[in-house]
């Protein structure tokens, strides 16, 4: 168990900067998810925590101890890799045992640890099988057993579920979180899947282009996104974004006008963001509604999503009742609820809009 602190971490490869000025505190025992599109620096950051890669600048502390230059086994971390990487020519038992190579346990204690880990992950019948003789889910369990057997300071998981099919991913998601909570070990989980992030993380760190965009609980990330990037990256179906401008305290975007007077927002270009559940579908010429041409209607079962193109070709989405009918090419209006809108400045940061005029 460990508290992990990243201090002003920078990682560059020649001229390419993978991670820039990253400060991150990982609380002892928490399940932190690092979320971002590919190339955002999340795996690089995980590798630096693991000791597989060393930062160009900055410090990494485990429980206050500087481990920046220490090799992986000196940090006592355990890692589960993409597609549940195992040594293909070794049995599951040998694979798990390899994790204990640097421990000073007696032979009996090792056997006990392996037996415990195997029991916890229901791997007992598989211990003498090779990874190639097991299913994807079993391999994932074996990789997890290999990680927990060391009783590490922290688990580092690099998209371990990405190669599995959807149903298996769903059940292993809760299994992993349950295991982590029972053991109480700090875990850092890297993913590009926002559903995985929302469902698994105690906190989510959203990264983009080597920068930490926001860190917070799933609730904070979803309901108080710090930037346009965070707002659009999380949520399914994704948030609608409408470009507009503030003049004299009023937001204008075509027929949409939202009065923000008295809240101290300077004039200038501003983007409006509103989630599909916070818009209403109206007639195309209704006041305050953006006229759209229906592009697609997606049935999700409990509800449906209408996707429409506005005059500039920007796609807007609205959640509607499953009984809703529309044909492609129909004209509709989409009206945002003023109270549920986010506003983002030209720099992409969210503009704080207090709920009532100051």
């Amino acid at each position, binding site marked *: 168990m460990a508290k992990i602190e990243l201090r002003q971490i920078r990682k560059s490869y020649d001229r390419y900067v993978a991670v820039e000025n990253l400060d991150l505190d990982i609380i002892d025992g928490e399940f932190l998810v690092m979320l971002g599109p590919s190339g955002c620096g999340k795996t690089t950051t995980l590798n630096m925590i693991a000791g*597989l890669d060393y930062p160009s600048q900055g410090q990494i502390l485990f429980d206050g101890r500087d481990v920046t230059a220490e090799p*992986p086994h000196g940090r006592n971390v*355990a890692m589960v890799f993409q597609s549940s*990487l195992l040594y*293909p*020519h070794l049995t599951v038992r040998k694979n798990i045992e390899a994790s204990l190579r640097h421990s000073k346990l007696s032979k009996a204690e090792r056997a006990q640890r392996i037996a415990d880990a195997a029991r916890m992950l229901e791997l007992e019948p598989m211990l003498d099988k090779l990874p190639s003789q097991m299913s994807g889910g079993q391999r994932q369990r074996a990789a997890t057993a290999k990680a927990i057997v060391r009783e590490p300071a922290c688990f580092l998981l690099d998209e371990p579920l990405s190669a599995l099919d959807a149903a298996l991913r769903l059940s292993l998601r809760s299994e992993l979180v349950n295991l982590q909570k029972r053991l109480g070990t700090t875990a850092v989980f890297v993913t590009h899947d926002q559903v995985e992030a929302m469902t698994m993380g105690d906190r989510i760190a959203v990264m983009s282009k080597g920068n930490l965009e926001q860190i917070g609980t799933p609730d904070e990330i979803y309901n108080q996104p710090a930037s346009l990037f965070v707002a659009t990256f999380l949520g399914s179906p994704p948030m609608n974004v409408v470009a507009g401008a503030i003049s004299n305290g009023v937001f204008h975007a075509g027929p949409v006008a939202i009065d923000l007077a008295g809240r101290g927002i300077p004039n200038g270009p501003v983007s409006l963001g509103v989630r599909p559940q916070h818009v209403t579908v109206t007639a195309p010429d209704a006041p305050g509604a953006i006229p759209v041409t229906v592009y697609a209607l997606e049935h999700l079962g409990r509800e449906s999503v209408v996707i429409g193109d506005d005059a500039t070709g920007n796609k807007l989405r609205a959640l509607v009742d499953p009984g809703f009918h529309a044909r492609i090419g129909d004209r509709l209006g989409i009206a945002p609820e003023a109270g549920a809108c986010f506003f983002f400045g030209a720099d992409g940061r969210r503009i704080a809009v207090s709920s009532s005029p100051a």
Partner: protein
Amino acid sequence: MTKRRPNFVIAMTVLIIWSLLPILWFVRMAFMNHAEIANFPPHIFPSSFNLSSFVNIFGYDYKLADGSISAASGQAGQIELGLQNSIIVSAAVTLITIIIVVPLAYVFARLDFRFKNVLLNAVLLAVAIPPVSTLIPFYTLYVQLGLVGTLPGLIIIDLTTTVPFVTWMLIGYFRNLPPIERLARIDGFSRLHTLLFLILPLARSGVAVSAIIAFLFAWNEFTFALVLVNGTPATTLPAAISGFLGQDPNPAQLAACILITIIPPALVAFFLQRHLAEMNIADPVR
């Protein structure tokens, strides 16, 4: 057994005849006598399995069924030396190639370092140069160094071809292995341990095929042997056999020698065919 389509059967038949007919031709010659070989139209099978050539090439007379004697070959001394030297040269070339190439190919395939691409291109350039083009420079160099007519000289020349070629082949194989180095570093294995005990067992098919290629090259190598060691105590089997073309023409004994020459490669290929097949699979692990 699935039913084969006729096109497939025809193609396979042509392929088999194409590759096996020349072998059949000299195999039958090895068991014939002079008169039978000279016969026209040729016989497909020898009239009697006459073993005299095989005895003659090792320096012994052979008493034929009609009581006449088939005399020992004048090339026998060279053949015996050649067989012995070929075994030494091939074994040495195979062993040294593998010892050099496994770490070399591993480093190129799996690690990043400065000037990697330049060095890799240098290796690949060596593959592209036809070995014969270096024959004359090597010869003049070897005269100065006193390596003409020696086994080490021949081994060194063979290595200049096998090392780059096998490196080039193994790099591709190593690249396809799963990234277990990361796992090994988390587990605290040293780089050497990772290579010897984790990568090598995974790559055993690639290494086995590399060994076969190095062995076959050294065993079959003719051009350098002809120029550098023919007629010396360091002669190899292919060079020694060439004597049957010039000094002592004897088609039956030539055929018997060739038959003996192709036995070791055939055995090697037969016992390692499982690995050869595995090399063709994109993912070497599953």
